[in-house]
């Protein structure tokens, strides 16, 4: 019982000290507050400058590449495009492979009349006029 009384008395005493301590809390100087706010401003400004730079570094092309799967996908597309150009530009010598011989590849197999039926009449007319 005596011990409980003692503890209670100690607590009451300490509470008074704590109250005094809370009332006597240090007040930040205006210099400290200014330094803290300068840091806050500096960090905010640094963030504002970093954001646009990081966006512009990743340009439209990089963004597009990211959408379709990155550089490996772009490499595949480039290969396909090059193959397309080659197929278009290459000599069609092997066309018979595709047509199975239905179309002849020799120019002598065609007469001009087959694609220009009035040509011989035109030639005859020209010859008659020139005489």
């Amino acid at each position, binding site marked *: 019982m005596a011990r409980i009384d003692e503890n209670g008395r100690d607590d009451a005493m300490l509470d008074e000290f704590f109250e*005094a301590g809370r009332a006597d809390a240090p*007040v930040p100087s205006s210099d400290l507050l200014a330094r803290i706010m300068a840091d806050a401003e500096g960090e905010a400004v640094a963030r*504002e400058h970093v954001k646009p730079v990081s966006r512009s570094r990743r340009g439209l092309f990089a963004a597009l590449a990211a959408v379709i799967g990155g550089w490996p996908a772009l490499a595949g597309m480039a290969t396909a495009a090059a193959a397309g150009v080659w197929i278009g530009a290459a000599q069609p010598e092997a066309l018979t492979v595709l047509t199975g011989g239905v179309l002849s590849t020799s120019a002598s197999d065609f007469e001009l009349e087959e694609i220009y039926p009035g040509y011989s009449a035109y030639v005859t007319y020209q010859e008659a006029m020139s005489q």
Partner: protein
Amino acid sequence: MAFDQARDVSDEALLVAYGNGDREAARLLTARLAPRVLGFAARMLGGDRAEAEDVTQEAMLRLWRVAPEWRQGEAKVTTWLFRVASNLCTDRLRKRRSVDIDSVAEPEDDAPGAVAGLIEADRARALEGALAQLPDRQREAVVLRHLEGLTNPEIAEAMEISVEAVESLTARGKRTLAGILSGRREELGYGSD
């Protein structure tokens, strides 16, 4: 943001606002938190005002840096800030001891000024002197609980220990403080019984 409205805004909301570029939110947070961190640091560092100010500035700088990633509801700003300040104080105390143990400010509880009057400032100074004699972790728990008003779970989070450990530290700390201060009751105006 008007000051009256800002009083109802939580620290967490203000920090998120600052993270989105709101400078006024930073000013309000500084006004709210800097005095608390400074008070805590000054007590942890035995009343060294210059060092306490450096700790306060550094802790607040870390708060500004973490602001863009802060998510409301994940942690309490005050708890986070006290944990940072506590670590900074611990580092400084460790360095101080390793460099020169004599450079540690002596508790001022025997200073004539503290004995002379019965005013509240003398009691505060006596408390500061007594706190300086506590082991670091006990001092930290007592300061956070009884001077900064944190709850035991908040202190447990700030100190990264269990609630039971907090209770033990504060109980031992208070017992030691009572032992130191009870001998000075009369001279500090509490009577002799």
